[in-house]
């Protein structure tokens, strides 16, 4: 049996030349080529995974603009192993990008691009470009809303190319707009054109690796001299070279196995990227974003000044591409060791930091408005009627909240306005709102362009709302003798002056920003009279808190002691404790909490709201 098998094998090998075909696997390589040299093999295997999974997906995928989405839904939800295969294809692409990046960084740091391997590097750079092209076109084949709009974004970017921009854009769209011709051309590019080119270039790349040999690990102080390098390399191989298979390849096999397991695990447990809504361009609530490997570029375009954006959009990829392609032309000899090329380490580190940082920013996308911003809660606004309340409502309704944060709620497109009242005077705030400023729209009531904060009343409401939220670090408590004809704060207090007129107590904040006045007698005494507690004749004022934790600690103090309204440490009998924390939401929260026991929520809440109205 074995003899028969050998006979058949020998016949086939003789006729097909299988051994000859596989003989390059046994090429002699430097024996020190160890773990650093596995990334090329890993990239190749990731590509093979892509080809295999892509072919399998093509069995069910229909590259028609009208049907592709449905076939993807079918593949994901119904086809056996469909979800896994989609995941395999996605994470395979991710792995390929990562491995090609690692391979490139290792080659660069080891100076392996130098003589005589310049063209090995160059073909590798082209393969990187093709890989990214595959990644982008592959995302578009995920023919959902994000993909369809990404085509438009790609066309818009291409439109910036001088002279031929409009033609290229129309070519990408497959016409004047997205339609029946759009998807099929990306399918052809992704499935036939780019893979065909990649097969050719991978073949060329591997051929060049065989032709020039795997570079030996660099040795500091041993520069590349084109005149002598080849002879030295041959000598090295004769002296200590090992056949790649199997002496050196086992490391590659281990890493490749780990890579495939990682891809499969991610595909199985995490699954493929979720499909967005159907690719209907009339659905305008779309938020197109590239996959992670191009997200950094998306972020770059968002962060650079608008004036140079067009140039960067076109020029940056071209510049980077040319730099990478020509690196070995102007730096083809000399030291290879990274320890003698600190700039090489710096380039790699800065590239990683830049791409990583931009990717992170792209993930956060702080430049994008938050369309999901909900109206601010009562807790945040701190009032349920009055100017502050109306201002809080307007802040949402007029779109301010889409771009600005208030206490962590809203968007991050513009500055956090939580404490804007601490930074700008009323006049400056009004000027900013009415006239606009750098990168903000104006809200002039007579602009006639929309977006306005209609009447002056609306403006004052927004102002009152913003003014009600400040950082006052004077966390303080003062006690005021209500029975005194001239109330005076007994200790350091947020109020600078207190006056009493009939049943109304008016205090002015020390910084003259938030004068307060309310009918103390009517509301507070009414409440306390009805409660089981003694009559209040003292008001305790707690200064606003700079942060929530401090404010809440005050709240806990009150909350734990609902009798604190009467049994406070006020030296007088019957102490009313008004927690006017300058952040009104805390007040409402505390009062509400206390009143759960006090029994008359409405009365005190009314007092508080009255206070707001009197701002």
């Amino acid at each position, binding site marked *: 049996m074995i003899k028969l098998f050998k006979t058949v094998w020998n016949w086939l090998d003789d006729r097909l030349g299988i051994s000859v075909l596989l003989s390059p696997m046994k090429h002699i390589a430097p024996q020190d080529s160890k773990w650093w040299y596995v990334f090329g093999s890993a990239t190749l295997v990731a590509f093979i995974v892509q080809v295999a999974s892509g072919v399998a997906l093509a069995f069910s995928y229909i590259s028609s603009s009208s049907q592709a989405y449905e076939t993807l839904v079918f593949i994901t939800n119904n086809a056996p192993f469909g979800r896994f295969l989609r995941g395999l294809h996605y994470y395979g692409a991710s792995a390929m990008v990562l491995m090609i990046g690692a391979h490139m960084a290792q080659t660069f740091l080891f100076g392996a691009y130098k003589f005589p391997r310049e063209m090995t590097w160059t073909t590798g750079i082209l393969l990187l470009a093709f890989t990214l092209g595959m990644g982008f076109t592959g995302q578009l084949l995920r023919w959902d809303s994000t993909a369809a709009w990404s085509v438009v974004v790609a066309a818009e970017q291409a439109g910036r190319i001088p002279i031929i921009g409009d033609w290229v854009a129309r070519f990408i769209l497959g016409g004047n707009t997205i339609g*029946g011709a759009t998807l099929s051309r990306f399918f052809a590019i992704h499935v036939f054109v780019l893979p065909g080119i990649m097969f050719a270039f991978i073949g060329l790349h591997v051929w060049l690796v065989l032709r020039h040999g795997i570079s030996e690990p660099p040795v500091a102080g041993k520069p590349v001299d084109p005149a002598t390098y080849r002879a030295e390399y041959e000598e090295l191989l004769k002296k200590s070279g090992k056949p790649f298979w199997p002496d050196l390849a086992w490391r590659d096999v281990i890493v490749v196995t780990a890579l495939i397991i990682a891809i499969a695990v991610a595909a199985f447990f995490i699954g493929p990227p979720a499909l967005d809504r159907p690719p209907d361009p009339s659905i305008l609530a779309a938020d197109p974003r590239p996959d992670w490997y191009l997200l950094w570029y998306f972020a770059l375009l*968002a962060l650079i000044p608008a004036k140079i954006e067009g140039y960067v959009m076109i020029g940056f990829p071209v510049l980077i591409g040319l730099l990478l392609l020509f690196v070995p032309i102007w730096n083809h000899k000399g030291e290879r060791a990274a320890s003698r090329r600190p700039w090489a380490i710096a380039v790699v580190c800065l590239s990683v930091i830049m791409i990583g940082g931009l990717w992170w920013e792209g993930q956060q996308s702080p430049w*994008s408005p938050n369309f999901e911003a909900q109206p601010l809660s009562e807790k945040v606004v701190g009032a349920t009627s009055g100017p502050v309340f109306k201002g809080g409502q307007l802040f949402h309704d007029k779109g301010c909240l889409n771009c600005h944060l208030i206490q962590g709620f809203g968007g991050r497109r513009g500055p956090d306005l939580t404490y804007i009242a601490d930074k700008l005077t009323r006049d400056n705030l009004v000027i900013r709102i009415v006239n606009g400023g750098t990168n903000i729209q104006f809200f002039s009531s007579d602009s006639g362009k*929309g977006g306005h904060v209609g009447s002056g009343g609306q403006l004052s409401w927004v102002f009152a709302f913003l003014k009600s939220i400040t950082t006052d670090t004077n966390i303080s408590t003062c006690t005021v003798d209500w029975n005194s004809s001239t109330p005076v704060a007994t200790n350091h207090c947020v109020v600078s002056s207190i006056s009493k007129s009939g049943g109304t107590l008016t205090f002015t904040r020390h910084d003259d920003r938030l004068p307060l006045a309310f009918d103390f007698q009517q509301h507070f005494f009414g409440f306390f009279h009805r409660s089981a507690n003694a009559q209040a004749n003292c008001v305790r004022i707690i200064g606003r808190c700079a942060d929530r934790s401090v404010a809440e600690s005050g709240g806990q103090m009150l909350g734990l002691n609902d009798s604190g309204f009467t049994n406070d440490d006020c030296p007088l009998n019957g102490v009313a404790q008004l927690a006017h924390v300058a952040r009104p939401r805390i007040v409402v929260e505390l009062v509400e909490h206390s009143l759960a026991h006090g029994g008359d929520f409405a009365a005190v809440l009314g007092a508080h709201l009255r206070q707001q109205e009197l701002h």
Partner: protein
Amino acid sequence: MDTNLTESSSAPLTETPEEISRRRFFEKLSIALVGLCTAIVGVPLVGFIVAPFFRKVPEKWVTLGKPDDFQIGKTVAVTVTDPSSLPWAGVTAKSGVWLRRVSEDSFIAFSANCTHLGCPVRWLEGADLFMCPCHGGVYYSDGNVAAGPPPKPLFRYDVRVVNGEVQMKQAIVPISTTL
């Protein structure tokens, strides 16, 4: 065997001037024929692929609705179906435009594409603003840029009211071609 073939083909030949001339002739003939074959296959192939460059789309007016369908001062999204779409375009034949009724007989149809990078802008009713989700471009209700990176106002389509219908000239994706 391969080696022998290579050696024989690269071995110096003793040729008469006639043979050289004949060889050069066949060499040039072969190259010309290869070029011809490439052109026969390649020209239609390239033409087919780049046809969208030259595809003339007739300007057609599409109906958006009746004037009474739209309130004065309001901006609404209107779905338009491309009358020139390919039969297999499916939902991609649709597109969205923002239609604003300015007065009794005045309408503005804005392209939904942000002039920055083409993302779909959204209308915020209360704010009277268009906002772009991609890079935060903001436009006023008249389409002018209010904030962010957009280089130009929102593109406006031609709109007319004919026979009791609000019509818009066929939607194309406006491409910003300026750096």
